[in-house]
């Protein structure tokens, strides 16, 4: 009977109840949605690179090195000598290395010069290796493998020819027009900056710069694509390289050895540690976002209480009748609490459904346009905690109108106040 009363009473005030439900649902969708996105963003962020034990570049801060080598943000301050790279990669503890040469771009997308070890050893997310959605790795000097987003955004297919530009701007005035690259492979989407990368061989990078000096074409010396192939295309320097060790136990030893390398000033960083440091900086924004969401939720809950409190006046009659037929004041208290609980639970359910449907609808768009891979299931143990907290807070806030009902029941008794 109590539940029936609460239910029918709410139904009787359905227009306001639905609006309350609506606003509460919106704030809950925001809360759960942002919480979910936050986790997914962190997940996707930290899953950018995995399986790599060290990243080595010219001496610099670890964030700078991480940003340009993994996230393709910013630029290296100096290069690593090819000879140095060769020496270090022969270190007995080192199992594999991936050379990285950055500095060129194609229509705003960064070009990465590397070798085939990249496609073999690079791991992201949960030790996932790279997969080709079409084609295969490059073999020739003028061949390229595109990240998923580059291919889909620019509409490239296997066999298309692209030209690289010097520098990393979206619009470049110095292009390597004379030496076009043919697309031989397109990588499957990974949800990492890799999707926005154009991969070529180190020799390719060397070839397009062979007639360049100090970042500009050398006047009077122009080599065609075929002529360049005849030259020695062994790179003179690379930007950075990734290292996989035989045993992770050796990480700190090798790191120290590289940092103390006599021939050149180098920095070796642990990607995990650097990622954590970077995320800490970003988590400020993340926490701010969460705070705003919580405030929206509080506004929603307070709105619900205001509506209930306002409805108490028109419900005095109802309360007096219940008192007259023998309801204890606590019964009225519980009745109001139950209504609030009913509203909150309904709002939670509505929010859950809305969120799942929205994510389901947006998943493809997010993945293809933003490289964000969001799982549809936004619920974890933590969202249960959230839900429980929301229920508790609303029950707590509901004490205000509920206590009003209780007190009025005691004071007014059977008095008729219209």
């Amino acid at each position, binding site marked *: *009977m109590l539940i*029936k*009363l609460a239910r*029918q*009473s709410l*139904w*009787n005030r359905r227009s306001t109840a639905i609006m309350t439900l609506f606003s509460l649902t919106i704030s809950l969708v925001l809360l759960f949605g942002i919480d979910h996105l936050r986790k997914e963003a962190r997940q996707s962020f930290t899953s950018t690179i995995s399986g790599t034990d060290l990243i080595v570049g010219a001496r610099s801060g670890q964030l700078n090195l991480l940003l340009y080598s993994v996230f393709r943000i910013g630029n290296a301050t100096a290069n690593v000598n090819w000879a140095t790279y060769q020496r270090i990669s022969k270190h007995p503890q080192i199992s594999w290395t991936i050379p990285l040469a950055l500095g060129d771009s194609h229509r705003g997308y960064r070009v990465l010069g590397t070798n085939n070890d990249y496609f073999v050893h690079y791991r992201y997310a949960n030790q996932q290796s790279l997969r080709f959605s079409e084609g295969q790795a490059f073999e020739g000097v003028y061949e390229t493998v595109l990240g998923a987003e580059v291919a889909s955004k620019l509409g490239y297919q296997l066999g298309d020819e692209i030209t690289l530009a010097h520098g990393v701007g979206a619009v470049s005035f110095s292009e390597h027009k004379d030496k076009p690259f043919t697309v031989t492979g397109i990588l499957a989407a990974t949800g990492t900056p890799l999707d926005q990368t154009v991969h070529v061989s180190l020799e390719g990078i060397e070839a397009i710069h062979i007639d360049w000096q100090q970042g500009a074409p050398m006047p009077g010396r122009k080599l065609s694509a075929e002529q360049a192939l005849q030259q020695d295309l062994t790179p003179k320097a690379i930007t950075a390289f990734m290292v996989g060790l035989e045993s992770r136990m050796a990480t700190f030893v090798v790191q120290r050895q590289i940092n103390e390398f006599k021939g050149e000033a180098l920095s070796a960083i642990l990607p995990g540690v650097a990622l954590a440091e970077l995320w800490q900086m970003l988590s400020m924004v993340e926490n701010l976002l969460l705070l705003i969401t919580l405030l929206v939720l509080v506004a929603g809950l307070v709105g619900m209480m205001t509506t209930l409190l306002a409805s108490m006046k028109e419900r005095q*009659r*109802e309360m*007096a*009748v*219940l*008192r*007259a*037929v*023998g*309801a*204890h*004041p*606590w019964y009225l208290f519980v009745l109001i609490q139950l209504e609030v609980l009913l509203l909150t639970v309904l709002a939670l359910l509505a929010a859950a459904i809305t969120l799942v449907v929205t994510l389901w609808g947006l998943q493809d768009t997010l993945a293809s346009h933003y490289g964000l891979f969001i799982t549809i299931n936004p619920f974890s143990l933590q969202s249960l905690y959230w839900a429980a907290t929301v229920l508790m807070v609303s029950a707590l806030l509901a004490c205000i109108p509920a206590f009003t009902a209780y007190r009025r029941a005691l004071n007014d*008794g*059977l*008095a*008729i106040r*219209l």
Partner: protein
Amino acid sequence: MTGIKPVTDKPKIPAIELKNVVFYYRRGGWQLSLPELSLPPGQHLFIKGASGSGKTTLLNLLAGIISPRQGEIKLNGEPFSSVSAAKRDTLRARHIGVVFQQLNLISYLSVLDNVLLSAHFAGSNKQTSEQRARVLLQRLGLEPELFEQQAAALSVGQQQRVAIARALLTEPALLIADEPTSALDADNRDSFMQILLEQANACGTTVIFVSHDPGLRRYFDKQLDMQHLAQGVKSC
């Protein structure tokens, strides 16, 4: 005879009994005093009083919403005013029916659910209560097709009858009616009074009827005037 009281003597226990009852909100202010009132089962009382004469206070006392400052009220021979508020609520649910001036019903519940409210709080069996509610509603002249309708859809006269059905559902010892006819026209008023007393008699219920309308006095065997009870400054 001074021997053992026979069980059949039960009717002699008054439905409600007030002794030396005094109530005031503030000491030295307006106060209500009722030295003696005892109503045997089935005997009805007409209380004449205009609004502001302490009528609501008296009703709250009789219904057990408030307790007297002095004196005692007994319901069915059992202590009523001296027990806890929660116990009084339960006793009210079981032994007292209340009919207000108007708007007696919870508008969004069906007619039947409104009647069954009293059974719910009295803790009676749901099935037998529902059967009884249907019979009672029909005896009060309400068509069965109205039973499932929302209470708000009924006319004022019909609503007041539903209120009687609710008040009498648990066969209470006492029915408190607070100007239940004030919203009715003359014809409806008379039929309402007849039906109220007829059904109350059938249940053996004592009716305490409060009204400022002296025209209703003739239905009752006993009368009390609020003016004799209230003393001091008027409350409002």
